[in-house]
């Protein structure tokens, strides 16, 4: 991924050519990006022009309390593809998993990039930030994640929180959260933060957000959880190819029953698709090959906040997640009492009406009536 940056003299067109990608292929990518981001087709030339002429912004990638899955997701491509090329349009000045430099040299690269591009660089964060006890639970080069984030964010143009840990806290934030892990948005409030959630997020979504930033110099429109609305606007359930089975009430009840073999809906096996917003069902994974539900496994809901604490992965959505027995008992008793009271009131009303019954006789049927 980290390219020898002495290629800087090359234009995008030249670079693409060198990688064996035709201009036609590049325009196709621009068109796909435009449609993916729900932009008008007239924007395609604008995207192409912007990407061609874009000044390579400096990107500082900070990996905190995480598993490197997000980086894996982004770099997992079998051949150089357009997503990687887009990444080449950025100057990835610091990424401690990928960079060659180590130790002091690595930290110097970060500091140099911050100084040189002050106010213009992008910060990508993956992993949550532990804040308890001064943030001692995760440090890099002796600097706590908390301190590094604050310091790096100060001169940033925008921050992209990649992955559910950075976006919503993820597994570090899950109960009992021993390190006091926090998402980026809980710490940084004075900079635009966009959440590209998912465990891991879809590579196309990361590159799409980057493409948008390169083209328009700003982050795309977001939903109420700060996620780009074009990718997180619809639930997995709404776009799921198994949806017709749900609508007809055909459910797999176990992983090896007839229903599972016939590809019926996995709702009763704990699928969180109805409550999960992401692009898996349309964009899919591994270069559009498949996605979990297509492979026969329920959606875990990984792009949603608190997905680790939403009860068992194999518990259907309608099953309560906590210990609700007591509340339930009170609720049932109260409900029954209210119901009985309402019922008896309704009955009283009906009995009263029956007492006042008007008997229809032949008098009512005659002409004068």
């Amino acid at each position, binding site marked *: 991924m980290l390219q020898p940056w002495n290629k800087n003299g090359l234009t995008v067109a030249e670079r693409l050519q060198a990688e064996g990608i035709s201009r036609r292929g590049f325009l196709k990518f621009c068109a796909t990006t435009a449609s993916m981001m729900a932009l008008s087709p007239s924007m395609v030339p604008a995207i192409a022009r912007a990407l061609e002429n874009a000044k390579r912004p400096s990107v500082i990638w900070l990996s905190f309390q995480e598993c490197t899955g997000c980086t894996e997701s982004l770099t997992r491509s079998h051949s150089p593809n357009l997503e990687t090329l887009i990444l080449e349009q950025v100057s990835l000045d610091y990424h401690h998993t990928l960079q060659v430099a180590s130790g002091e040299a690595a930290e110097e690269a970060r500091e140099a990039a911050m100084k040189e591009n002050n106010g213009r660089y992008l910060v990508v964060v993956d992993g949550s930030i532990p804040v308890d006890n001064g943030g001692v639970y995760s440090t890099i080069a002796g600097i706590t994640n908390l301190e590094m984030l604050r310091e790096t964010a100060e001169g940033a143009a925008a921050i992209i929180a990649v992955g559910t840990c950075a976006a919503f806290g993820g597994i570090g934030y899950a109960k009992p959260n021993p390190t006091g892990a926090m998402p980026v948005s809980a710490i940084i409030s004075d900079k635009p933060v966009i959440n590209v959630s998912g465990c891991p997020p879809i590579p196309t979504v990361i590159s799409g957000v980057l493409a948008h930033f390169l083209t328009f110099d700003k982050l795309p429109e977001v939903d109420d959880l700060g996620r780009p609305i074009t990718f997180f606007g619809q639930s997995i359930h709404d776009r799921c190819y198994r949806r017709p089975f749900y609508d007809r009430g055909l459910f797999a009840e176990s992983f090896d029953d007839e229903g599972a073999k016939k590809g019926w809906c996995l709702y009763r096996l704990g699928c969180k698709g109805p409550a999960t917003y992401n692009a898996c069902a349309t964009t899919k994974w591994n270069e559009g090959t498949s996605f979990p539900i297509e492979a026969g496994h329920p959606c875990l809901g990984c792009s949603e906040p608190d997905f680790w604490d939403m009860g068992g992965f194999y518990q259907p959505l309608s099953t309560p997640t906590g210990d609700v027995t007591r509340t339930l008992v009170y609720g049932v008793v109260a409900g029954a009492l209210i119901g009985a009271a309402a019922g008896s009131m*309704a009955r009283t*009303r*009906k009995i*009263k*009406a*029956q007492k*006042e*019954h*008007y*008997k*229809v*006789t*032949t008098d*009512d*049927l*005659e*002409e004068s*009536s």
Partner: protein
Amino acid sequence: MSTPAERATNAFKEQIDGPIASYLSSCVHCGMCAHACLFYTETEDPRYTPINKVEPLRRVWKSEYTFFGKLASKFGLTKSVTDELLKEWELLIYDACTLCGRCSMVCPVGNDIAYMIRKTREGMIAAGYAPRGLKDATYRAVTVGSPMGVKLPALKAQIKHVEKDTGLKVPLDVEGADYMALLSSMEIMNFPEYIEALTRLFDKAGVSWTLCSEAFEATNSGMQIGSSDIEGELIQRIVDGAEKLKVKYVISPECGHAYYALRWEGPNVIGKKYPFEVVHILELLDQLRAQGKLKVEGKLDQKLTFHDPCQIVRKGGVVDEPRRLLNMVSSNFVEMEDAGVMNWCCGGGGGVSANERAEPLKLTVFNRKKSQLEKLGVNTMVTACANCRINLEEGIEHTNMDVEVVGLAETLAEHLAD
């Protein structure tokens, strides 16, 4: 004395029960019932959407039985039942509904809309808002004993004719017979061949039966106009007659709503169990067929079809019986589109045929049956309801079609083996 609107409101309160409350609260306003109703499909008038016909009942439910409705009515924000509303809805509830129940079959949330319209009629008649023709018919049913004003001497005259034609005795007031047969006035006056058919079929099958001079009328205008009081009074006459003759079964004739009133609503409106069983003539004939007591010979080879009377097919589930019987005597029986439980109404049920005001509308909606028949290209249609029969004949006459309508029992009787 309370005002008509108050009487209607009180009657609606009496009628709102668990099912009605759950139906009204679960309606999703999908409009599927509109497309199931021939009054809508043939006119495309949205007022004829079945669920819209229960608006007066819905208003009372909303303001009396729902939280927000009760809250709103405290502030005087709810719409109450007014004379104007009842007057307007009389045309929808009586003229544009045959209680055929097709809407209930298609409702995706399972609302029995026809049942609600039947209940809404209770309030309408309590307030006096019902069509003149239906009021007159009901008046005659209570005072004379028949909506068409048929009295015992007329029946006796027909019996005499039948006895002369068949050479058989028509049993009248035979105590201890197994079956007591009922008739509809329409059969006595327009289709006496039904009485003849019964006489011959039962003679051959060895059925012990009788007519009752005090309870021969099966039709129930009280049910059609929507008054449980009058419906109960008419049902009670049949119960008294059956008890007096100590019969085990009462046979509902070839009449749709009579069957519905007698078999399903009767015990509820009189508030007690019958000391006998009610059986529809088609059910009995099919039973005799199964027992090998119904022997026929010769088959009609002309193309013919069967019109399902709504109350018999949808309320009674009598679907296969007429088909098994018809196939005994026909070699070219064809089904019309939507045959069986989803068949379309003749357009004159539920009191519409007694309502002169509704005649133009009734003839308009007959187009549905007309197109069903035209697709088949038949010249003979068999049915098992005298009211359907007269309605179909009227429609056929009006549209200059060449189709003969016959009753099922008489068709069977014509083929009885010697």
